């Protein structure tokens, strides 16, 4: 005890008020121990929350730019379209002019198509035949799925009759080619006619039905076609399909030439379908359809859109294209088998567009590629490959919102969510003000004042002790220890709102504590009934109330 008091008495502090000649103001006075104010200041200054790097794509190459360069662009003749969508920006850090490609998809499409074009020359000789056959199948199926995407993605109509249309066109053209001896080049054209008729048939229910009602109905149509073909003698129920149609692949050519011809023909079909997709999805019809998805028809109609006409159009266009593909299929395989109508085909097709991502051309193509590789290249695995496709499908459903090509968007949403979480955890330290309040406050100095104020109050709370109260009771005015002086300086500086004042009811006899309203013309209010007999008592009463407010806030 005595040891402590000894050390305490040794501690002194420099009185800042001594220079002004306050009464009894010594230059150095003894003080009680208290916390160092620089500690909390250092603590507040240093961030404890880990800071992650902000900004994105530090690694991305950006070509340099000059203002005038932006105007000399290569354009697709004869349109005004530029080759790539380019935008000039200024680097935020270095302020250098840079050129960025707003849409890099054409680059990847170009590379992908170059890969498909060079594919026969880069595959190993041992697998060449298998891979070329698979490539041919890929081209045809990707074309079918692109047409399907027009209906299921762009028009947002859940139709499952796509393969039924292809099959109907293929069976029709096979039958005509076998019985009437039509040459191969007429088959896709006749197929277009068949497809057009099928398009009318499937478009009529689409005007009345929606959602799964339409999807299941088309599934039923598919099954209907299958049963009809399987039981009908004209369509070769005995041989499992119709074979012997005319083809563009000459039997007398060497086998490799045959494979390469068929491969390239199906890739050309794919490119044609991609053009069709682009000119339907990316143009007026696609815009109209995407504006009037299911359950938003009323809005579309109110905007002056004839969505029924647009839907019939997209059915007719895609079915005609599917009919063309059906005719091509016949000419490609010299006929057609029943399993084009089977439920498994629909299922695999659905797997293709689901895995890739419904509604996007690249999703349809890449999904088709994945499933065809699993289905046709790894054929030695047996039924396990279907299980693999199913597992891939399940995983896509469970974890991805819209297939492989939806990952980018999903990842960005997830990243932004995480970023927001981290940002809010950083701002939580920032004091009284919540981030939302801070953004709404016009005077940003206030944000910082509150933050500083919080820090200061936290520090001042550590100074409050019995000794300080005792010291103030003894001598409310005059020179004090550092702790008390800091507290009093803070209290005196507080705002006019609810600031405590002493009301003298009878000089030297009766004093009461009041609080200012803080508004001009607003009268002060009495805060307590207690009367003090001297000014010193009243001073101490105010001090205690302020201490209480500080500790409670």
């Amino acid at each position: 005890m005595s040891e402590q008091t000894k050390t305490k008495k040794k501690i002194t502090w420099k009185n800042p008020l001594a220079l002004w000649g306050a009464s009894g103001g010594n230059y150095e006075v003894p003080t009680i121990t208290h916390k160092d104010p620089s500690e909390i200041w250092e603590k507040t200054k240093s961030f404890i929350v880990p800071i992650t790097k902000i900004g994105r794509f530090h690694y991305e190459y950006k070509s340099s730019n000059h203002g005038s360069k932006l105007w000399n662009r290569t354009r697709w003749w004869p349109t005004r379209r530029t080759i790539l969508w380019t935008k000039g920006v200024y680097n935020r850090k270095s302020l250098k002019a840079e050129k960025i490609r707003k849409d890099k998809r054409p680059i990847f499409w170009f590379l992908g198509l170059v890969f498909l074009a060079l594919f026969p020359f880069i595959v190993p000789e041992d697998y060449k035949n298998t891979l070329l056959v698979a490539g041919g199948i890929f081209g045809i199926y990707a074309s079918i799925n692109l047409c399907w995407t027009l209906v299921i993605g762009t028009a947002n109509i859940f139709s499952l009759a796509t393969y039924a249309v292809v099959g109907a066109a293929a069976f029709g053209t096979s039958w005509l080619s076998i019985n009437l001896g039509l040459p191969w080049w007429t088959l896709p054209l006749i197929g277009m006619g068949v497809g057009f008729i099928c398009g009318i048939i499937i478009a009529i229910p689409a005007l009345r039905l929606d959602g799964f009602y339409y999807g299941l109905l088309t599934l039923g149509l598919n099954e209907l076609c299958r049963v009809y073909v399987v039981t009908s003698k004209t369509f070769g129920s005995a041989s499992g399909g119709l074979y012997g149609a005319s083809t563009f692949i000459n039997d007398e050519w060497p086998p490799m030439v045959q494979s390469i011809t068929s491969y390239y023909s199906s890739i050309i079909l794919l490119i044609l379908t991609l053009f069709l997709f682009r000119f339907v999805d990316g143009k007026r019809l696609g815009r109209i359809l995407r504006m009037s998805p299911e359950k938003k028809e009323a809005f579309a109609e109110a905007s002056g859109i004839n969505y029924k006409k647009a839907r019939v159009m997209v059915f007719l266009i895609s079915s005609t294209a599917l009919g063309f593909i059906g005719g091509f299929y016949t000419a490609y395989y010299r006929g057609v088998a029943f399993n084009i109508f089977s439920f498994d085909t629909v299922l695999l097709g659905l797997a293709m567009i689901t895995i890739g991502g419904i509604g996007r051309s690249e999703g349809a193509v890449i999904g088709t590629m994945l499933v065809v590789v699993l289905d046709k290249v790894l054929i030695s695995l047996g039924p396990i490959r279907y299980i693999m496709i199913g597992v891939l499908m399940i995983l896509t459903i469970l974890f991805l919102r819209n297939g492989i090509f939806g990952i980018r968007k999903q990842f960005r949403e997830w990243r932004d969510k995480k970023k927001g979480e981290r940002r809010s955890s950083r701002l939580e330290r920032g004091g009284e003000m919540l981030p939302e309040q801070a953004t709404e406050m016009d005077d940003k100095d206030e944000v910082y004042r509150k933050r500083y104020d919080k820090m200061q109050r936290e520090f001042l709370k550590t100074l409050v002790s019995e000794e300080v109260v005792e010291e103030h009771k003894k001598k409310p005015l005059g020179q004090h220890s550092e702790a008390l002086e800091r507290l009093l300086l803070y209290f005196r500086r507080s705002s006019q709102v609810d600031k405590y004042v002493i009301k003298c009811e009878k000089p030297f006899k009766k004093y009461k504590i009041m609080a200012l309203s803080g508004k001009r013309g607003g009268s002060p209010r009495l805060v307590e009934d207690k009367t003090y007999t001297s000014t010193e008592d009243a001073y101490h009463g105010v001090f205690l109330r302020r201490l209480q407010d500080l500790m409670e806030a």
Partner: protein
Amino acid sequence: MDIPFVIINGITIACIYGLIAVAVSITWSALGLLNLSYGFIFSFAGYGAWLAERYVWHDPVFVLFMGIFSGVVGGILVCLLVFIPVHDKPNFNIRGMIGTLAVSLIGSQCLLQYFGPKNKLLPEVFGYWKIKIFGVVLTADKVGVIVCSILMIIIVVRWMKSSRRGLEIRAMMMNPHAASIVGIGVRRTGLYVMAVTGAMTGLSSVLLSQTYYLAPFSGLTPMIKGVSIALMGGLGSVKGAIIAAIILGFNEALTSRFLGGQYVLITQFSLIILVLLIRPRGIAGILDKAREA
């Protein structure tokens, strides 16, 4: 002209497909899941019954119950694999449907891998007797099919009307959001619904296997027929499904009697398209207000 024969045939067909249709309807209205994996559950239950008959006990009633039990297991499997992980994710309707298709693909291929493509035959559950009522000869399997499936539907409907769990399911049918707010667990109810509908599919599997063989893909046609009946009745309505099952059952019996078996699906789908063109939400078509797709 044996009209009674046609009527009995129609009712038999209606009973089997009606079971699946009611199952599809209940699942759709309670969970918002269009379950297209009933084909797989169908085959799964059939193989379960077959295994039970082969390795455990030959008793026909035991086989019947094992079929129902395997159907329950299959339903719970689908629920755990697809419904529970996906039900609260965006775009649930389409994702759930594709998920059930994927389960169906995987499951059927697994069955094919394990049991092989050879057809299996289930025992005659109801024996070989015949009965004559009002001059109509009824074979044992027809009587059994009609009695069992009507009993099953009555039990399920009574259970849904009178039990606590049934109340939860009906609450989910009316308004899934409000039901979850008042403390009805979506996942738990999903399990009940899938178990019950799985049981119905399992029963229909054993019943249909009285006339047909059992194969890994034999569930496909019943599933498509069940779904089309549910569609025609109005997705989500048990009454509508039953009416549609009766109409389509008679259509099937009449068509195969007067036109020939291969025209069954053609007349069936023409009928469905006709009904749907007149009433786009199916015959019942009102309950569907409860759950918008």
